[in-house]
């Protein structure tokens, strides 16, 4: 589904990603871990098409298409979803209005009829249950005055509404208490199918107790320096990142 080859990206001339290689197949969950500043969030942003990053080398193919050629909205319409680390507030625009615009633009791209108000509302009610969303939030301005937990739940709710093929969760666990973490993870797990894939970007192993990954990758200095299964995450939890850093840095000096 997603193939990343030798991806290099920089911001304002500073290289952040220095040759990422990753293969994600349908039905898989990949966790990207790594110390602060290793490029985890950059990878998520680059895949979603944030424009301040400059791609200096490499290629990314998504469902056979050159992802890097697509505008951010076309990537979304093709099925790439990014759950933001810091969801953005849009005053005066209700979640309902926002989502209806989004869902119908995606449908239009795919050559489907727009959903009428009744069908849309039915879909919303169904998906709200997934993340135990309070209906009141939907008529309020998007993310404005939402608590940290509500914002993250709203991200997963949007994900459920848009039914993406590739979901990228960018530190969705940050700022969540244990109950919210459980609710958010439940939502993600219920949305999992054999046809879609998830990339979980996280700092802590805690989230992976709830969303169990098929593969764990460690990102350091803009490269994937170690890959393994979920046991790798446990090892990292126990030993920290220093041993990996040492391994990489000593190899580099040799």
């Amino acid at each position, binding site marked *: 589904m997603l193939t990343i080859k030798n991806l290099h990206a920089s911001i304002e001339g500073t290289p952040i990603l220095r040759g990422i290689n990753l293969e994600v197949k349908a039905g898989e969950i990949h966790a990207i871990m790594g110390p602060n500043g290793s490029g985890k969030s950059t990878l998520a942003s680059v895949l979603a098409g944030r424009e301040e990053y400059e791609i200096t080398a490499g290629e990314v193919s998504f469902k056979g298409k050159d992802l890097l050629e697509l505008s951010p*909205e076309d990537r979304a319409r093709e099925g790439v979803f990014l759950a933001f680390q810091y969801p953005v507030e849009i005053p005066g625009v209700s979640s309902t209005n926002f989502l209806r615009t*989004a869902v119908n633009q995606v449908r239009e791209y795919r050559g489907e009829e727009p959903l009428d108000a009744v069908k849309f509302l039915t879909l919303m009610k169904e998906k709200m249950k997934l993340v135990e969303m309070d209906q009141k939030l939907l008529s309020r*301005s998007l993310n404005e005055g939402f608590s940290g937990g509500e914002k993250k739940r709203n991200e997963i709710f949007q994900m459920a509404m848009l039914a993406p093929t590739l979901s990228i969760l960018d530190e969705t666990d940050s700022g969540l208490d244990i109950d919210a973490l459980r609710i958010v993870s439940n939502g993600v797990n219920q949305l999992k199918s054999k046809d879609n894939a998830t990339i979980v970007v996280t700092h802590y192993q805690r989230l992976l107790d709830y969303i169990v990954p098929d593969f764990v990758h460690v990102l350091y200095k803009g490269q994937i320096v170690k890959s393994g299964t979920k046991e790798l995450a446990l090892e990292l939890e126990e030993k920290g990142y220093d041993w990996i850093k040492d391994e990489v840095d000593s190899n580099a000096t040799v």
Partner: protein
Amino acid sequence: MSKDNQILEELTSKEYEHGWSVNYEADEAPVGLTEDTIRWISTKKEEPQWLLDWRLKAFKTWEAMYEPKWANVHYPKIDLQSLKYYSAPKQASKPKNLDEVDPELLDIYKRLGINLNEQKRLQGIAVDAVLDSVSVATTFKGTLSKLGIVFCSFSEAVKEHPELVKKYLGSVVPMTDNYYAALNSAVFSDGSFCYIPKGVRCPMELSTYFRINAANTGQFERTLIVAEDESYVSYLEGCTAPQRDENQLHAAVVEIYAGAHAEVKYSTVQNWFPGDKEGKGGIYNFVTKRGICAGDFSKISWTQVETGSAVTWKYPSCILKGDNSIGEFYSVAVTNNYQQADTGTKMIHIGKNTKSRIVSKGISAGKSQNSYRGQVQVMKRATNARNFSQCDSLLMGDRCGAHTFPYIDINNPTAKVEHEATTSKIGEDQLFYCNQRGIATEDAVALIVNGYAKEVLNQLPMEFAVEAQKLLALTLEGSVG
């Protein structure tokens, strides 16, 4: 230039939709402004002596006045002697009803999306259509007159209801008020007149549609709305002009009188030609709008969506004279490219327990300058006056300006006055967030801007609100990156 600005640029560079003009034979006053010009207009309109005298007095007053310089707008000096002060489409004879109106003129309005044919019109709105200097048609007159409501062109009112015009003309905006009001008083050509008798609730929206067509012509219309005790009326005003290289002057006066327990809602969607992308051409819109809440418990509410004009100078105001009277001002002002707007309101609290509410939303894009200027004045005897003001500015890109000039003048210690202000930018973050959910940038801007202006748009009558939303999106199309 950042990507954000590029999109802003594209979005704001949408061409003006109503830029066409039509050639028709016109009756025009000679170029220039002298006493003779005024006599010419007055004769043309077959006016009574008292009105000519009134005009001439205004002209004398105006001659002694200077153009105001305090507004935060800059434009080359207007040569008032190079303008024509009257232009009217030639019609064989004065039409008595719509069937007799020149089809060519009706067609102009059709192209603007305004069908003056009563049968085909959406129910619930009566229209007075003003082309250049004269009113060409007023719809639904019959229906309204059954209720005693007078809705007609100003010239007609002078002939049919001279006592009402005489009583209220200049009673809210005196001819001495300011430079442009004095000029208007001297040379005004037509406009709308509306009278709602005591206890009558006007069953439909009354609307005036102004269109400037002729070149080098100033449009000076005058609107007078009188709502007697316990009456209600909602009034709409729309305007467009052709795209011309030179600037055109529009200096209107609107006066509203509200008796005890009367309520007047006045909504404007102003879409005069704003000039092109380089700032060439466009309308100079110097307008004086004021209402007086003369009776106790009366209410006047101004709502404006300002998207057009090269330069705007406009402060719809309320004089809250009656006890417990209420004044409201809701405004969205959008400026793009090289547009300049200096707009706001004045709330003058004279009566006891008077309340006013100001909600102003400025949106600046391109290289435009957008200023809010507002005054809240509480007089000595206005015990328990209340005011709430909210002034928000939204910036798109980094080459435009937003300015706020609030004046507060309190002479009674029981007054409670609140002022809130915010300035924000359409962020790259907001746009990216929308994009990431599959929403195209232009639609994202429309969504964000309409969200921002929602509180004001909600005040407009439904049909108008939809139009206004589209207009906002259109004005800003091409302006975000």
